[in-house]
């Protein structure tokens, strides 16, 4: 699938995007993975249409049907509360006679689900000189890898990214980011392990100005939202950025692993409380997890999902589309896709 990346980043001209022709690669697909699922899902819907007898079964909207819908949502990690709210809306429409048959029901279910996401501008704002992007999230959710991917896309679009190794805590975190920088072909500002993240970040901003980098992407150490001191440290990093550039960071992206269960919502709330999250990157969507917690996160925080991670390569990054996402939560039979 080729995406128009000028729609993904704010501040990239359509011409730049067209000439770069960044292709989201499909090479990394795995059977049962997200992309395959999308294709199979579409095939399935065609088949489903032919199997009209099934719709007879579903034409009676009975208790069991609602339960099946509930289960499909719960299974996708949408969570009890969000599920209840989506099903209630659907039920109200059905009761009002607005939904005629099973296929209409599924369509509305998907639309209602998609509408549950925060509908704000999902583009990543790089319309600044330089634009500053701060990446935060719980341990192992994919911050460093996502930074590599975003930097690569920006580079393809003719921008000059600069990476800052703000994870001074985890063993070999600096080496990991340096390796991504090498693959992308961009500079990485780093200091020794164990240093003060604020100091590296400050250095990074100074270097960005000196070297005329357009986009500064800052990596931070993974931290559990329950670790108060580490959350404070993150607040301090933002203060350091603001001292040098009062309107930055222009984006503060939270990575959420698609396999995360209901805890994802608390994570997101705590990160939002500490630093002002502007968007979510839902990673590891190439597995079998549905990432349904993203619904609650986006709705509750009022923050759009901006990107999805679909693998471990530089190219494994895609824009987020609520309706596609909703279509992948369940198929026509409400079974698992």
């Amino acid at each position, binding site marked *: 699938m080729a995406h128009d990346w000028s729609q993904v980043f704010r501040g990239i001209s359509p011409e730049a995007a067209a000439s770069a022709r960044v292709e989201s690669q499909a090479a990394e697909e*795995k*059977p*049962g*993975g997200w992309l395959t699922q999308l294709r199979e899902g579409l095939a399935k819907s065609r088949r489903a249409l032919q199997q009209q007898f099934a719709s007879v079964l579903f034409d009676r909207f009975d208790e069991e049907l609602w339960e099946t819908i509930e*289960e499909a949502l*719960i*299974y*996708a*990690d949408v*969570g*009890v509360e969000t599920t209840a709210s989506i099903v209630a809306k659907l039920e109200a429409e059905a009761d009002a006679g607005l939904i005629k048959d099973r296929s209409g029901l599924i369509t509305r279910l998907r639309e209602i689900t998609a509408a549950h996401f925060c509908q704000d501008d999902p583009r990543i704002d790089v319309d600044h000189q330089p634009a500053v992007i701060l990446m935060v999230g*719980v*341990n*192992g*959710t*994919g911050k460093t890898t996502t930074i590599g991917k975003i930097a690569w896309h920006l580079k393809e679009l003719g921008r000059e990214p600069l990476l800052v190794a703000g994870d001074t*805590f*985890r*063993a*070999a*975190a600096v*080496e*990991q980011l*340096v*390796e*991504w920088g090498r693959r992308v072909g961009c500079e990485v500002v780093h200091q020794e392990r164990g240093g003060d993240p604020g100091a590296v970040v400050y250095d990074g901003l100074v270097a960005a100005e000196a070297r005329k980098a357009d986009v500064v992407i800052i990596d931070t150490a993974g931290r*559990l*939202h*329950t*670790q*108060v*001191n580490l959350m*404070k440290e993150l607040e301090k990093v933002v203060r350091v950025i603001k001292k040098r550039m009062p309107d930055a960071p222009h984006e503060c992206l939270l990575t959420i*692993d*698609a*396999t*995360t*269960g*209901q*805890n*994802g919502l*608390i*994570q997101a709330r705590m990160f939002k409380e500490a630093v002002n999250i502007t968007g979510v990157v839902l990673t*590891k969507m*190439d*597995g*079998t*997890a*549905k990432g*349904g*917690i993203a619904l609650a996160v986006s709705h509750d925080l009022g923050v759009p999902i901006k990107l999805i991670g679909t693998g*471990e390569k530089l190219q494994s990054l895609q824009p987020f589309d609520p309706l596609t996402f909703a279509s992948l939560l369940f198929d026509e039979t409400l079974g698992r896709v």
Partner: protein
Amino acid sequence: MFDSLSDKLQAAFEGLRGQGKLTEKDVERAAREIRLALLEADVNYKVVKEFVDKVKTRALGAEVLQSLTPAQQFVKIVNEELTALMGSASTKLTFSPRPPTVIMVVGLQGSGKTTACGKLAKFLLGEGKSPALVAADVYRPAAIDQLKTLGAQVGVPVYDEGTTSDPVDIAKRGVEWARTKGRDVLIIDTAGRLHIDAKLMDEVARMRSTVKPHNILLVLDAMTGQDAVNVALQFQEKVQFDGVILTKMDGDARGGAALSVRAVTGKPIKFASTGEKLDGFEYFHPDRVASRILGMGDVLTLIEKVERTIDEKKARELEQKLRKSSFTLEDFLEQIQQVRRLGSLSSLLGMIPGLPANKLKGLQVDDRAFDRIQAIIYSMTPEERRHPDIINGSRRRRIAAGSGSDLHAVNQLLNQFKQVQKMMKQLGSGRVPKNPLQMFRNPS
């Protein structure tokens, strides 16, 4: 962990208590609440369904409804089923009579394998073993560097061949290397992989049949949702793991994924891993956790924690200070730090029987209060910490600014400290228990 699940279950029980007789409707309602509690805790929905059905069938049996204490009977049934779900006593590692014992660690990307390997090595050192590590993750940038750093930190040798060899060969040669080095346990850190990645799953399967590990441990993030079951079943099919290391237990996840994995694979959770410091690693005790979830406390773990964390010598020094009434803010800080090493306050309180987590809500146990106190004390000079009396108005203002708090907070802390000091003086003149554990051992 598990605290909030505990709250919800107790709320369900609460509704039943105080009722002489249970009707079918009462049971239905409690069962629904239990269902919701488990789903919100990320227990797999199929597992939940079976669990709730079992509880319901048993609870609706004649002997419960007609018993004199139906509510207690109901709690007992839930307890039994929950314990059955989690497995009972903890299960240890298998050690080979012919060293090295090989432990292969597998799991999804980002679940915490490398850190868990470092922690396991440290844990085994503590058990008197001489472990070594093998870096078989040749894919993730700097994964080898990470393991080598951890190895150096723990003081355990690491075998690696860079990123160009085949991981299966690395593992094989690693075993030979461990044997010649006389290491008796070898831990193989493998790359994170998706359970549906045929090529990489085949790689671990080959590694398994080549090195024939004595233990295969699946690393599972405690925050995982419904997908945990898919992951576990696939890994079970391809590599037949023996047990689970549950990571990131220091978060506030409700840990239902762990219950589900045990339920669908029958494989026990062997280890619980907490925090990024390398000593947060211990055997998992399912029975104790079940009892905690049900609000019955977990005194055993609390006692073990206290014994491990509280420094006997320091405790005696403190006692001396108390007797001599020379308790300073520095000692106060030390005390706070010791208590904090045990874990969060709310998690500690959750271990005390008779203090169900939901009753503690009103107490407002806020660990952040500790942070504020620590920040204020850190902003004092050593002189001020030893002689709080010299802290006058201008010093107070400086401390408030330095710690990012306000004058009010500083005053409050100093007043509280004075009260503590007074209390200590009274205590000091009387008898102070030598061992904090006495509190638990002699319930009078």
